[in-house]
C-alpha cells in the first residue's frame, strides 16, 4: 500500500513531488483506470490546495486554477469568450463527472477525446507548470505531446491554465458528436473562437478533437476565415483541405472516413452557430 498525501498548500505538494507519485485531483480518470485492483502507488491528492482552485481575472486575462471543476467553470460569470469551453463542460460525462472532474485533470490525462482540449486550444490557453525550481509556462499545444503523454517533467505540477484576453469582442462555441446523449466519448468535436471587428473576422482559432492523437488547430481554415464578413456565409469557407492536420482512425465509435466527413459538418455548424 502506498502513501497518500493531501497537502493544504502548494509548497508541501511540490516537496512531495520530489519522489515519484501519482497526482489525484477529481479522480474521474484516476479511479476508472484502476478497476478491480488495489492502488499500490504513492498518491498526491491536490484537491485540498486552495491556491489551485477557482477562476480569477489577471492583468492579461484569466487564470483557471488547476482543480477548478467543470461545474465551477460552467457556473462562473465569464465573458462570451468562454462560451465554447462552458459548452464543452456541459458535455463532459454527466453531472457527477462535471461536479468532480477538473480542467487540469482533463488536459493532463491527455486523451485524444478530451473535450476540454479543443476549446482551450481555441482560447490560446497556456499551461502554468510549477515545481520546486519555479514556474514555467507552455502553450497547450506544446503541453500535450501524444496519446496520454504530456510535457510534464518529474517534480512538476500543473497549477493553472491561463487564457489571454482577446483584442476584439469574441464569439466562441463547441460542438460534440457522440453515439448517445450523456456519458459519451466524442466521435469528434470542434471548437472555435472568432474575434470580430467592424463586422469582419479579425482573428480566428479553430480546433478539432478525437480525429488525431492530439487535438489540432486548423491554421488553413483560420486563415481562410480572417477578413471574412461575420455572417452565416462563414460556414461556406470550410473545405476538406483544411483538415490536413488531422489523421482520424477507425475505431469502435466510427470509421476514419466518417470522421473526416463529419468534422466538416461539425465545423460548418459550429461557425454558423457563432453568428447570431
Amino acid at each position, binding site marked *: 500500500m502506498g502513501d*497518500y498525501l493531501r497537502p493544504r498548500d502548494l509548497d508541501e505538494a511540490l516537496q512531495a513531488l520530489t519522489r515519484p507519485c501519482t497526482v489525484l485531483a477529481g479522480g474521474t480518470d484516476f479511479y476508472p483506470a484502476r478497476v478491480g485492483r488495489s492502488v499500490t502507488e504513492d498518491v498526491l491528492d491536490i484537491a485540498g490546495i486552495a491556491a489551485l482552485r477557482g477562476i480569477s481575472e489577471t492583468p492579461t486575462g484569466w487564470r483557471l486554477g488547476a482543480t477548478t471543476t467543470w461545474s465551477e467553470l460552467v457556473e462562473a460569470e465569464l465573458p462570451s469568450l468562454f462560451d465554447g469551453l462552458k459548452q464543452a463542460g456541459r458535455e463532459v460525462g454527466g*453531472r457527477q463527472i462535471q*461536479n*468532480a472532474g477538473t480542467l487540469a485533470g482533463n488536459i493532463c490525462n491527455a486523451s485524444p477525446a478530451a473535450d476540454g482540449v479543443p476549446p482551450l486550444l481555441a482560447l490560446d490557453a497556456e499551461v502554468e507548470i510549477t515545481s520546486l525550481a519555479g514556474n514555467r509556462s507552455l502553450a497547450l499545444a506544446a503541453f500535450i505531446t501524444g496519446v496520454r503523454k504530456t510535457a510534464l517533467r518529474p517534480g512538476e505540477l500543473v497549477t493553472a491554465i491561463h487564457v489571454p484576453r482577446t483584442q476584439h469582442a469574441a464569439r466562441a462555441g463547441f460542438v460534440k458528436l457522440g453515439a*448517445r446523449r450523456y456519458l459519451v466519448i466524442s466521435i469528434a468535436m470542434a471548437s472555435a473562437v472568432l474575434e470580430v471587428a467592424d463586422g469582419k473576422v479579425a482573428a480566428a482559432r479553430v480546433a478539432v478533437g478525437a480525429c488525431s492523437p492530439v487535438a489540432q488547430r486548423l491554421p488553413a481554415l483560420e486563415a481562410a476565415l480572417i477578413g471574412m464578413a461575420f455572417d452565416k456565409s462563414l460556414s461556406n469557407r470550410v473545405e476538406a483541405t483544411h483538415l490536413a492536420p488531422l489523421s482520424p482512425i477507425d475505431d469502435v465509435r466510427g470509421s476514419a472516413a466518417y470522421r473526416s466527413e*463529419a468534422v466538416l459538418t461539425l465545423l460548418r455548424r459550429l461557425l454558423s452557430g457563432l453568428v447570431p
Partner: protein
Amino acid sequence: MKVAFTLNGTVAEWEGVPVTRLAAALRDDLGCTGTKIGCDAGDCGACTVLLDGRQVCSCLVAMGQVEGRTVETVEGLALPEMLAALQASFLAHGAAQCGICTPGMLIAAEELVRRTVKPTRAEVEDFLGGVLCRCTGYSKIVDAVMAVTSPVREADPAAGEAVGARLSRVDGIAKVTGKDAFGADAIPADALWIRVVRSPHARARFTLGDLGPLRKRLAAVLTAADVPFNGFGIYPDIKDQPVLADGLVRYRGEAVVALVGARAEVPAIRDEDVPIVWTPEPPLLGIDAATAPDAPLVQADRPRNLLLEGGVKRGDADAAFADCAAVSEGVFETAFVEHAYIEPEAGWAERVGDRIEIHVTTQTPYMDRDEVANVMQLRPEAVRIVPTACGGGFGGKLDLSVQPLIGIAAWKLGRPVACVYTRPESMAASTKRHPARVTAKFGCDAQGKLVACDVRATFDTGAYASWGPTVANRVPVHAMGPYAVPNVRTWGEAFFTNGPPAGAFRGFGVPQAAIAHEAMMDELADATGIDRLEFRHRNALRVGDTTATGQVLAHSAGLAQCLDALRPAWHEAQEKAAAFNAAGGPHRRGVGVGCMWYGIGNTSMSNPSRMRVGLSPTGALTLYNGAVDIGQGSNTIMVQIAADAVGLPAAQFALVAGDTDLTTDAGKTSASRQTFVSGRAAEKAGQDLRQQILRLANAGPDARLSLEGAMLAVRDGTEVRTLDLATVGPLMGEGVFDPPTTPLDADGQGVPYATYAFAAQMAEVEVDIELGTVKVLRIVAAHDVGKAINPTLVEGQIQGGVAQGLGLALMEEYLPGRTENLHDYLIPTVGDVPAIECILIEDREPLGPSGAKGVGEPGLVPTAPAILGAVHHATGVRTYRVPLLPHRLREGIVQLKGKTP
C-alpha cells in the same frame, strides 16, 4: 488515516487507507449498502451520493478527500417512519423495477428537487443523465421526478379487487429506501473472497506452473482439478462449459484459476503473478470462420461446429414464390449484445453441516440448485439456493456465474466465501445475445396477402451451448412474424465459435428475426402500394387462424386490435413528419411500425410451476413463491393473483420468495412465463386454499372472507361463520400449472406454446442526414397482454423492453476486449429514450390467470424494427446491420445519393 465527516446529518468517523473509494467505505465500513456499485468507473451512476450537496460518483472519490465534508446517501432521504416525497413518488409511479439504480437515481434527483420542485423534462434529463437504468426505460423515473410534489397514492385494493389494480410493488419500500439486499449487499464480514483469473485469449492452450507459492499466500487456489464434475450447461445432456478451464480456453474471459483469500489480498495479486503459460491459437470468430470447410473445431465432439439445426415447413414455399405479385429479399446481421444489468454477478456461500447454502443474484434458483449439486457431486437436497434481490437479469442470470466457485471454496474451506464480479469481468465472462445472420425472402399477392416465406437464421452461439438450442428452436417458429402465411420454410442453426457463450437474452433470438421479417413487410407494402400498417393488419394472425406449425389459435390473438389502436397515432405522425420534412434542412423525420408475436414459456417442453398459499394458526397468510422477481414485478402480481383467488386483500399477504428450502419449484424467470405459468399456479393455489376454507365453514362459492388476527370470518349471504385458525390448524393451498404443448415433428409441426403475446409498436425518429445520427422522438407501444394484472408493472416492462430495443437498433455492440466496460459499450441513457406511450390490449387467454399472458420479452421485440422502419421512411436507407451506428447510417445515405442523382 482517520477521516471525520458528516454522513446523513450525523458525525461519522472512518479509519482506513485514504485512497479507499468512498463507495467502498460507505458499503463495507459505514453500513450504507444502499449505495450500489455497478462499475467502479463512473459509468453507471449507481453509486451516486451528494458531496457537499452536489451529486458525485462515490466510486471516484477518495476517502482522503471526504474529511470535513458532507455526504448524503439514500439512507438519509427518508424521514423517520416516512418516505421522502421523492421516494413516495418513485414508489407510486413504479419507478423502481429491480431497484439497483434506484438509490443513485433518487440522489441525482434529490440534487435537482432541492433547487426546484417543478423541474422541466430537460432539467430532469440533465440531472439524471449520469445514472443508467437498464430496466425501466426511464419513463416512470422521469414521471416520478416531475410529479414529486403531487405523488399519487392509490388506496390498497379491497378483497377481490387486486387483479387489474396499480398496486405498488410489494417489495417497493425496500427498493426506494436502499434496504433491499442484492447479491453484494449482505456478505458476511468474515467471508473469504474469490478473484477469478480469466483468459486474455479467445482460444489458447495453457499449462499451470507451480502454484505452491501462491497457495502459501492465500487460503486456496482453485483449478480444474478442484472441481468434482467440471462441466455445466442449461441442458441436461449438454454440460459443455467447464467451471475452470482445463488446459484449453475457448473464449476471452473464460475462468481459469480462482484465487481465494482475504478481501484485500486477492485483488493485490495481479494476473501476471499467476504462473500460466499460454499458447494462443488463431480463434474462430464469427459464423463464416466457424462454417468454413477446413475450420478447426471449437468442441472436439461437435462436427461442423454445429450445435443444433431445425426448422418449420408448411405448404410449398418454393413453388408459391413463383406466383407472388411481389417478392422481397434481404440478409440482416446483428451483433453480440450485452445484458448490462447494473448489478454485476455476486453472491456468497456457506457450508452448513453437510449442506451448502448459496446466496446469489439469480433468475433461476431451482436450476442453480441442481446444477451446483451436479458440479459439486452432491444431492440436490444438499444444496440450498437463497436468491438475493436481483439487480436485473434479462436472461443473463439464468446461467451459473459465481455459484459453483463459491460453493466449492466454501465447502472446502469451511468458511463463508464470496465473489463479486467487476464490471469488465461481468461483461467478459457472461453470456450475450446471439449474433445472427437472417436471410429472409417473403412474397405476397397483388392484394398484399402474404403467400410464402423462406427464412434462414444462422446464429453464432459462441464457445459453449448455454441457451443456444433454445434460440435455435424458438426462432424458426417465430421467423415468419405474427402473420398468416400459407407456405413457409424456416430454418434455425447455431454454430460454435470462439466468441463469448451466447445465451438467453430477452427474446431468445426472436428480436433478431423480427428485424428481418419486419423489413420485408415494409418492402412488400411499398411494392404493393399499401400502407405499411394496413399491410400488417391485413396479414395479422387472428383467432381461428392456423400458424405455420399447424396450431389453430383458439383464443387471444390481439395483433389486429393492437394495430387498430396504433392507427390514429400512425396517421398523425406521418402528417407531422411530412410537414417537418417539407421545411428542408439537414434533419428528416420518419415513422415506422413493427409487429411481433411471442410464444409464452418453453418451446414444446414441459415447464411446470408449483406455488403454495399458507394460512397459519396465528392467521399469517403467506404466499410461498419460488419464482424470482428480477425487477419485472412477479412478487407483486403473484400476490395480486393469489389474493383474489383466496378472496382476501393483497395487503394481508406475506411473501416468501425464491428460497429453495422454503418454496416449491416455480421454474425459471425467463421466456415471459412467470405471469402466465406461475401466475396460474398461484391462482390455483389460492383457489385451493379458498376451497379448504369454504369446506371448513360449510359455505358456498360466493362467500366473502375476512381475516383479523387468527379469526377468519366467512360470510355467506347473511350467515357468518368464524373459524378460529388456532384450532383449525395450518392450512396450505397448492397449485400446479404446466402449459399444454406438444413436441414438434421433423417439419416443425405441433403445438410449441400454449399461448402467444402479440404487439405492434410505432416509432417516430429524426435523422441528422449529414451526421447519420438518429434521435427517437416517440414510441407508441400497443401490446396484447391477455389481461394486465398490474398495469403499472406491465407498462414498466414494455418501456424497459423498448429502451433495450432502441439500444439494439442504434448503439449496442459487444466486441470482446474492446467494449468490455460501460464506457465503450453504450446503452441508452435518459437522454436517448423518448416518452413511451403504452396501449394495453386485453384479449383474454382462458388458460392464464384472469386471462393474462406474458409481457417480459415482447416489449423489446418490435422496437428495433419500428425504429429501423422509421429511419428508412426518413432517409430511404434500409438497415442490414445493427447497431445502426452514425457512421453506418451516413454511409448508407451517401450510397443512396450516389444511386439517385
